[in-house]
């Protein structure tokens, strides 16, 4: 097991910069989730750590070794791919044994390791099967088994659950977390799914357009989003944004141009007394809660989360909306979060 550190890492294809000046330190035994929208460079980052992609600038250090110019096999990493990438012509056993065979381990040791791993992943009864004779979930396990038998310093998972159905995904998430704890492994996990990131991560790295927007524990990121992007990306439904040019809100920090309020913190209030007024557009009844979709006169859309026990106002009525001071997040016009210290003292 090992630490991974990236310093000023950059990746460009010709003139297109895909990753720009990325610095990140990952502790030994940590489960780091890299989350961001599709195309933001998550896979590229992971593949640079794996050695499948050249590093344009900066350094990647794994277990105190600069690995920039090492081949993947010399980096002591194992990777799980989105489509599993199992060798279709080999049995599950041979799939798991392949890297060990290349590494020159003797047969007895290989069999022993595979037996241990297969037991860990409950794959014992499938060892003689070919990948196409397995279900999606089983293939996923084999892909993880192939990584685990190698006992690498770092595990790299690239959207390993995105091909599974929703139920299996939730189950596998828990299994991955448990497994990672049990092995004490350093694991970098890439996903575009913010729920997956929230449930799995020790710390998460929120990426957008090739840069890191914020690094922190899931709750830190949720309660203290550093930018409008993070505020809008993490949390479902996303945070509501009110443009301060259109709304008369006091007090506001200097330079603030947007205020963000999470759906669960938004409250109804009498017309004209809140932050803004809006009309009830429609309801999403989800059982335990109801999402009220609202539209303001200038076209901004808001979502308010209600306990189902509460009766919402009728459709098409106008209501006032407000939120407690501590739940108002202010951002400047670059999307950067303004801390409440920046706020002028309230009169």
């Amino acid at each position, binding site marked *: 097991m090992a630490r991974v550190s990236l310093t000023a890492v950059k990746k460009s294809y010709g003139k297109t910069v895909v990753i720009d000046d990325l610095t990140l330190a990952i502790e030994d035994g940590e489960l780091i989730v890299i989350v961001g929208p599709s195309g933001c460079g998550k896979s590229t980052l992971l593949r640079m750590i794996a*050695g499948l992609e050249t590093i344009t600038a900066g350094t990647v250090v794994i277990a105190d070794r600069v690995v920039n110019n090492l*081949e993947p*096999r010399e980096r002591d990493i194992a990777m799980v791919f989105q489509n599993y*990438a199992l060798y*279709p012509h080999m049995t599950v056993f041979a799939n798991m044994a392949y890297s060990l065979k290349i590494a020159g381990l003797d047969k007895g040791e290989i069999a022993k390791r595979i037996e241990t791993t297969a037991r860990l992943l409950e794959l014992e009864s499938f060892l003689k099967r070919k990948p196409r004779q397995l279900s999606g979930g089983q293939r996923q396990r084999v892909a993880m088994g192939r990584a685990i038998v190698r006992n690498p310093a770092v595990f790299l998972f690239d959207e390993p659950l995105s091909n599974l159905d929703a139920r299996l995904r939730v189950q596998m998430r828990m299994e991955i977390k448990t497994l990672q704890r049990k092995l004490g492994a350093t694991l970098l996990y890439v996903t575009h799914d913010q729920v997956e990131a929230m449930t799995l991560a020790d710390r998460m790295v929120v990426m957008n357009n090739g840069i890191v927007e914020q690094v922190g524990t899931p709750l830190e990121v949720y309660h203290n989003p550093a930018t409008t992007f993070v505020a809008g990306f993490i949390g479902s439904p996303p945070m509501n944004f009110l443009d301060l040019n259109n709304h008369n809100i006091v007090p506001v920090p200097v330079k603030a141009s947007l205020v963000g309020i999470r759906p669960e913190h938004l409250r109804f209030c009498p017309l004209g007394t809140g932050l803004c007024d809006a009309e009830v557009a429609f309801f999403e009844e989800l059982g335990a809660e109801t999402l009220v979709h609202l539209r303001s006169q200038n076209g901004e859309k808001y979502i308010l989360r209600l306990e189902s026990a509460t009766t919402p106002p009728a459709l098409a009525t106008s209501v006032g909306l407000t939120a407690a001071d501590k739940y108002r997040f202010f951002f400047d016009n670059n999307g950067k979060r303004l801390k409440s210290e920046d706020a002028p003292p309230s009169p």
Partner: protein
Amino acid sequence: MTGMVEKKGWGLWLTHVGLLAGIIIICYPLYIALIASTVTQADLVTPPMPLLPGGHFLENYRAALFSGMSTPVWKMMANSLVMALGITIGKISISLISAYAIVYFRFPLRSFFFWLIFLTLMLPVEVRIVPTYEVVAGMHLLNSYSGLILPLVASATATFLFRQLFMTIPDELVEAARVDGAGPIRFFFDILLPLSRTNIAALFVILFIYGWNQYLWPLLITTDPVMNTIVMGIKQMLPSGDQTVEWPVIMATAILAMVPPVAVVIGMRNLFVKGLIESEK
């Protein structure tokens, strides 16, 4: 087959009659040849032509195999076998390697070489036969197995087939092998070859028959009867001028010439059909 529209009554009968007629049309000449190879020359040339097997099967076939007309048939068949196998194995090996290079490696002038190979598609042996003869003669390869085989090995069709196949192999699989520590050679033998198995089998059958049936090229470069191949050999057995010929022996030779290709097709039919219809991904 399930899923096909099921025919009933007249339709069913018509289909079968049609199929039977087709089979008879194809098989009748073969049957005649087979019958002719079991009777004596005298029986054959006196009308009516025999339609039932005679009793001279062993005699005719022994005559063909061990004495023939100018060269014993076993010798010509051996030549054909060497040539067909040489072409098949040579072509498959070269195509596999060149397709591997083109798909997986970045090297200078890569696309130039690609188009160069592509160009050879437009130049089958028949088109370039005169210059090819010049070159082979210049290299003193007339009347040799190398001369028979080499000019037919160089062709692009198989390279393209493997290139297409390799391009369907997901990048992730290649990367997984890299992470697992497989170098280029290992990847080729452990992953690429097994995944191409069915395609190789299909190509083997097609190329073996192609090699076996070569006529023009062997005719041109084998002047020594000992180097004759069976397909051109049959032609040379045919009467020219007022020679008398042993038709039963010629027929026996024709039947013998068909045996290896048929054996290859039957022997490899499972893999062959798989390679044509299924891709094992």
